[in-house]
């Protein structure tokens, strides 16, 4: 589907170039009253038209959350969050069906203009339905995004893949949601995950049936009409026996959000012989030059290799947010299952990153691989925190970990906190760690060859993270590379 790719590339390319200017769109939203109570939870559930069992599930989480305390073990420092001073639900006002682009809110149109997105695509993104006859006339042979989107949905439907907002899935596929939701990250898991369970607004749901290889990479970009998943995102992906799916989350485009607190939960379930590849690019607002503002990103991501020979692979490029608290993990339950974690975490300015992974080896002959590249610049603090453990029944567990940190300048910090627990004597765990400083000599060498200071930093850093970039789907890797350069602008000199 070259046209789809072209669209994605084009939009993303535009986004990246516009990034540093940032912009906000002021549109009317429908908000739940400030503060968190059972009423807030009921309000959200009702807005989503949820069945009673879902509301009950949320309320149970909420009651549990009241008994919990915010964790403090991470190496991040932020003022105390007043949970009663936050909004927990804000949705764009329901749109009426538009028939012409003139009906789109002019503020939104301006945003698209700044991004340089062609009007035809704006129509698609905003869900303009043209009168039947006109659409046919308007079909652009080269670049018809509307039909591209339709083709895309049609292809998934043929393959039997379910890909929809989780709020829709709760209504349309309750049996699947009930069976899997909260089975990887239970409602009682941790403070932020429990909060998410109570108030999650929306997110993605993916089910790939037995033996199906999802015919395309799934990206939130195509989840039309559901682009404002917001603050408390909830994602559930299930790969049934022998299924394969690759999922791309996020975007290199700036994610500027008035909500400071973000607490997402992502659950992955891989059954026998299934494989899930989950890639993230996170570029939320990191705060200003003095460290004011910026998103707090407290995410719980976990994959369950439930079946034999299953595989889950996390790849992340984290460049945004003021605070990042994130440990995409794998439970290696099935025999011969495999978990992977490839991470690039870049911090600049006053950003604080505490990120890493957990590889829990439970089944026999399970293996895992961790490649983490942390880059700290400015006055930022960048911590890798990881746990590799082998259960006493995890015969033949294997892990390889490599944590490399790169420091740019002398006011930032890089920290590595690995935990290793082997309760089975046959386990083989390897851990390698390096910390290096980007050297003046290296930069000068590049500059003497004609590169500017910033180009030189970008080149050296991209070399440093190459092993991880290679794990990203091709087109994503290109923009991630650009994003890395942009994130480090002004980090030297």
């Amino acid at each position, binding site marked *: 589907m070259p046209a789809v790719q072209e669209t994605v590339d084009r939009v993303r390319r535009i986004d990246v170039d516009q990034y540093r200017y940032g912009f906000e769109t002021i549109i009317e939203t429908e908000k739940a009253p400030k503060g968190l109570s059972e009423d807030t939870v009921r309000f959200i559930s009702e807005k989503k038209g949820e069945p009673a069992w879902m509301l009950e599930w949320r309320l149970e989480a909420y009651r549990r959350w009241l008994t919990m305390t915010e964790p403090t073990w991470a190496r991040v420092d932020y003022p105390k969050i007043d949970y009663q001073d936050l909004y927990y639900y804000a949705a764009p006002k329901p749109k009426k069906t538009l028939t012409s682009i003139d009906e789109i809110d002019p503020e939104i149109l301006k945003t698209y203009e700044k991004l340089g997105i062609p009007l035809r695509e704006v129509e698609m993104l905003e869900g303009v339905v043209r009168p039947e006859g006109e659409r046919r006339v308007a079909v652009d042979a080269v670049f018809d995004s509307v039909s591209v989107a339709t083709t895309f949905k049609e292809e998934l439907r043929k393959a039997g893949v379910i890909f929809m907002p989780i709020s829709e899935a709760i209504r349309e596929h309750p049996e699947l949601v009930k069976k899997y939701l909260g089975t990887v990250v239970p409602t009682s898991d941790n403070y932020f995950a429990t909060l998410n369970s109570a108030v999650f607004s929306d997110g993605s749901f993916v089910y790939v049936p037995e033996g199906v290889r999802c015919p395309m990479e799934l990206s939130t970009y195509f989840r039309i009409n559901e682009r404002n998943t917001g603050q408390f995102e909830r994602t559930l992906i299930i790969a049934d026996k022998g299924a394969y799916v690759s999922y791309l989350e996020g975007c290199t485009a700036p994610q500027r959000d008035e909500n400071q607190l973000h607490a997402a939960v992502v659950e992955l379930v891989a059954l026998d012989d299934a494989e899930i590849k989950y890639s993230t690019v996170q570029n939320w607002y990191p705060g200003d030059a003095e460290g004011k503002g910026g998103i707090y990103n407290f995410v719980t991501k976990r994959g369950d290799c439930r079946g034999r020979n299953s595989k889950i692979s996390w790849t992340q490029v984290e460049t945004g947010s003021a605070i990042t608290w994130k440990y995409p993990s794998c439970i290696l339950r099935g025999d011969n299952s495999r978990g992977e974690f490839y991470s690039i975490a870049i911090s600049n300015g006053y950003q604080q990153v505490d990120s890493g992974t957990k590889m829990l080896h439970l089944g026999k002959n399970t293996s895992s691989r961790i490649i983490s590249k942390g880059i700290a610049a400015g006055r930022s603090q960048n911590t890798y925190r990881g746990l590799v453990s082998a259960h006493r029944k995890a015969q033949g567990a294997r892990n390889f970990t490599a944590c490399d940190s790169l420091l740019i300048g002398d006011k930032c910090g890089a920290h590595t906190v690995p935990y290793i627990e082997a309760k089975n004597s046959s386990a083989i765990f390897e851990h390698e760690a390096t910390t290096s400083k980007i*050297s*003046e*000599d*290296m930069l*000068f*060498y*590049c*500059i*003497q*060859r*004609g*590169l*500017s*200071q910033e*180009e030189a930093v970008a*080149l*050296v850093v*991209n*070399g*440093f*993270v*190459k*092993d991880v970039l290679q794990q990203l789907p091709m087109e994503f890797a290109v923009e991630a590379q650009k994003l890395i350069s942009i994130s480090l602008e002004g980090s030297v000199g």
Partner: protein
Amino acid sequence: MPLLEVRNLHVRVEDDGNEILHGLSLTVNKGEVHAIMGPNGSGKSTLSHVLAGKPGYEVTSGEVLFEGEDIFAMEPDERAAKGLFLAFQYPVEIPGVATMNFLRTALNAQRKARGEEEISTPDFLKKVRKVADSLNIPQDMLRRGVNVGFSGGEKKRNEVLQMALFEPKLCILDEMDSGLDIDALRIAADGVNALRSKGRAMIVITHYQRLLNYIVPDHVHVMSKGRVVKSGGKDLALELEASGYAQFEEQAA
């Protein structure tokens, strides 16, 4: 107009304030090859660093004109784009950045700074292949990270490769012979000699006369304690080889 004119240059190290160059003067015209010789600590490498714009030095007085323009008014990358090339004594390793990618990025950065178009991929590949072949650089080496795991000889050949590719007006070769055996030295020197031309000048910095058997200079300068104490033709190098640097050290003191 000389290509490079250094007038009464005084330079000190930023960190400790030590003055390294005490009034150095040097004129280099297009087409000439100048050798700068001198004992360790005479300021030879400092001169190359200051000309290329390496941070950490402070110019306290004097001036340097490159094609008549004040070199200190240009950023180091501008100097490179204008045709100043430094072949490093110890080329650094840049892990994860394929040599090929590095060469293209640098070449295009220079072209862009000069307001030229980026080079097309086929043209670039053709050019690199030609130069690499002449220097005995296997294609496999170009796919590896810049200088990563290269032998001393390979690193120096990689410097010459870049010199050939960027076609600079002034090449400064800083101790090109250090760490090279005779065979490696010959290959690198042949590469350098192939680049000698009417429009290009070279400054060959070396401790030993040996290198000058392969790259025969038009002019030889002896440096001691931060200034040029004697200049002459290529025979001066042979004279030095016989008598040593001691006589000049006394002279400079």
